[in-house]
């Protein structure tokens, strides 16, 4: 498949597709972060994760409209308000869902999967009733439009760059929270040995709820960022959910670095292959490779070494 191209051509193809892959990478990182926290911490699969993300996207959409109509002067900065609101709404809903549903099911992870799937159906239909089945897009502020011209062939759109920066700063924030804060230490203690953590006085139920809310909140921010590069429909979240699960599992469920590495690998290989093959075949090959690697190495790329 490489025979028809010269080396320089190949290099620039890889560079171009690499940039395209980076925007997919940002989406994966944003979605996978929240999922990895929830899955790694509690072993809970949240099938409604995509819908929490869409909640963030719709929050952003509403905020944008609100600013446009009532505070046009501050429109340039609406996005930061929207992101905060998206985080708060999603986290609040996440905490409620944890309290009403998920906490009853910690001993039955497969049942959580089904229950959250039911939740995702309900949320999707609710979006459809409220916002309509059509996809909505947000108005970007002036400074986010346009692109940097790197070379005459390669240009980077500013909104894509912005999303990437958000993705990386969230990853950094999560890292700091998990590995440099007291709360993170508690979370890690619960992940590694729940009964022992409980025995030394950590409120594990509280940690669970906060973790679930945090994961959902990050999904909300992801959705908010997502509106910058694409439009939002009621079922947009579902389109990414399986890929994101694979990213998380492939990276090793409890490792944040692993999640980032696997998001990078999967998005880059997919976008590079997309140039040479059709889009669907590229996706099939990527997913298939991931599934086969997971069969050979079920613990993922970077497994947390824990004695159980």
């Amino acid at each position, binding site marked *: 498949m490489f025979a028809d191209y010269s080396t320089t051509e190949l290099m620039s193809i890889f560079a171009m597709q690499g940039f395209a892959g980076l925007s997919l990478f940002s989406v994966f990182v944003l979605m996978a972060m929240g999922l990895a926290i929830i899955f790694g911490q509690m072993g809970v699969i949240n099938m409604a994760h995509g819908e929490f993300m869409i909640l963030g996207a719709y929050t952003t959409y509403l905020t944008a409209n609100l600013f446009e109509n009532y505070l046009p002067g501050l429109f340039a900065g609406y996005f930061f308000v929207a992101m905060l609101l998206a985080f708060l709404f999603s986290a609040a809903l996440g905490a409620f869902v944890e309290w009403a549903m998920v906490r*009853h*099911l910690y001993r*039955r992870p497969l049942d959580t999967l*089904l229950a959250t799937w*039911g939740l995702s159906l309900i949320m999707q239909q609710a979006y459809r009733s409220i916002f309509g089945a059509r996809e909505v897009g947000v108005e970007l502020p002036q400074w986010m439009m346009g692109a940097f011209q790197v070379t005459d062939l390669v240009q980077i759109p500013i909104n894509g760059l912005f999303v990437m920066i958000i993705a990386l700063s969230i990853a950094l924030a999560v890292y700091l929270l998990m590995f440099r804060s007291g709360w993170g230490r508690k979370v890690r203690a619960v992940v590694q040995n729940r009964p022992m953590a409980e025995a030394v006085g950590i409120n594990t139920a509280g940690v669970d709820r906060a973790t679930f809310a945090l994961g959902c909140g990050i999904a909300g921010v992801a959705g908010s960022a997502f509106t910058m590069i694409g439009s939002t429909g009621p079922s947009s979240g579902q389109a990414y959910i*399986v890929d994101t699960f694979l990213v998380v*599992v492939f990276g090793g469920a409890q490792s944040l670095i692993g999640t980032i590495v696997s998001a990078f690998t999967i998005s880059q290989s997919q976008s590079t292959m997309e140039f040479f093959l*059709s889009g669907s075949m590229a996706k*099939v090959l990527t997913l298939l490779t991931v599934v086969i690697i997971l069969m050979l190495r*079920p613990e993922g790329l970077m497994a947390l070494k824990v004695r159980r």
Partner: protein
Amino acid sequence: MKNSSPVKWLVSREGLYYLALAVLLVLVLPALLDSFRLNMVGKYLTYAFVAVGLVMCWGKAGILSLGQGVFFGLGGYCMAMFLKLEASTPEATAQQSTPGIPDFMDWNQVTELPWFWEPFHSFSFTLLAVIAVPMILAFIIGVAMFKRRVGGVYFAIITQAIASILTILIIGQQGYTGGVNGITDLQTLLGWNIRTDEAKTTLYFVCVAMLFLCLFVARYVQNSKFGRILVAMRDQENRVRFSGYDVASFKVFIFCLAAAFAGIGGALFTLQVGFMSPSFVGIVPSIEMVVFCALGGRYSLLGGVYGALLVNAAKSGFSESFPELWPYAMGALFIGVVLAFPNGLAGLYQRYVMPLEDRLFKRGKSGDAGNDDAALSGSLGAEKSS
């Protein structure tokens, strides 16, 4: 004990439940419904095959597969390929640029029948493939996963990914698979027109017969020593392993069995509906199949059948009158069945109706009652699944 004689079994409590289902499917529904509705029930029943497979796989052995649509679809596609080839005789497709190949291939500039379509000229090969293709795939997945002790949530996600892969593949390879429309316009089976009302009614009865065959196979497996090991494995996998059993092989077997059931269901679906498309393969239909089984009761074979019938009937009913409410109902069903009654309808039946039956027939103290309970809904005592 059990199986002492078929007649004796038939008048036992469990036998009567099977008899009731048979009466319902063979006598009551055909008498009450017109042929259009009966055909729809036949369609729902094909999902019951998947549900029965899931009861064995998920309920008994604790392996949740979210990719049963893959096996259903493979079975269905095998049958559809045979029917499509039969419909695409050189005479019938004379106006195509390449006569003798299915119409969608011609539309996609495919000029030659792909190699994997060739064997489907033979009906006996097709019948074999309907069961063998899903089983082989299940075997490969099962061996790869279970030998490495991958289970639970990971297994569920990977089967889901496989469902996603197969859907993308079918849609992407339009020239070979018919793409998103699927394989449509299927008319005859060995010269027999399957679109007439009589043919549909006949196929319905074939479907019921096959379902009972599968139910008896499943019941046989469940009541054998093997079935006991499965339940033990679900509840205490390591203990079974340390007792010297090869846990992985048992899992592979039961996963293959479930896949075969799903494949048979898929083939019967194609026959009764007259087409097959990727919309029965992907993630959403696959996970819906799990809820058929969950609603009926994940430990009960008959529950699976009733679950498939009820959910699908409700789906059609809702979609006809309130299409926008159905996703809410379905979502609530998922949540409710998991949170409020994890043992499904069979569990409710056992809890509330069975004591009434006992009082009515004064057989509460007879020796075989407890035995039959276990047969109907497995060990409900072991409520923790997964």
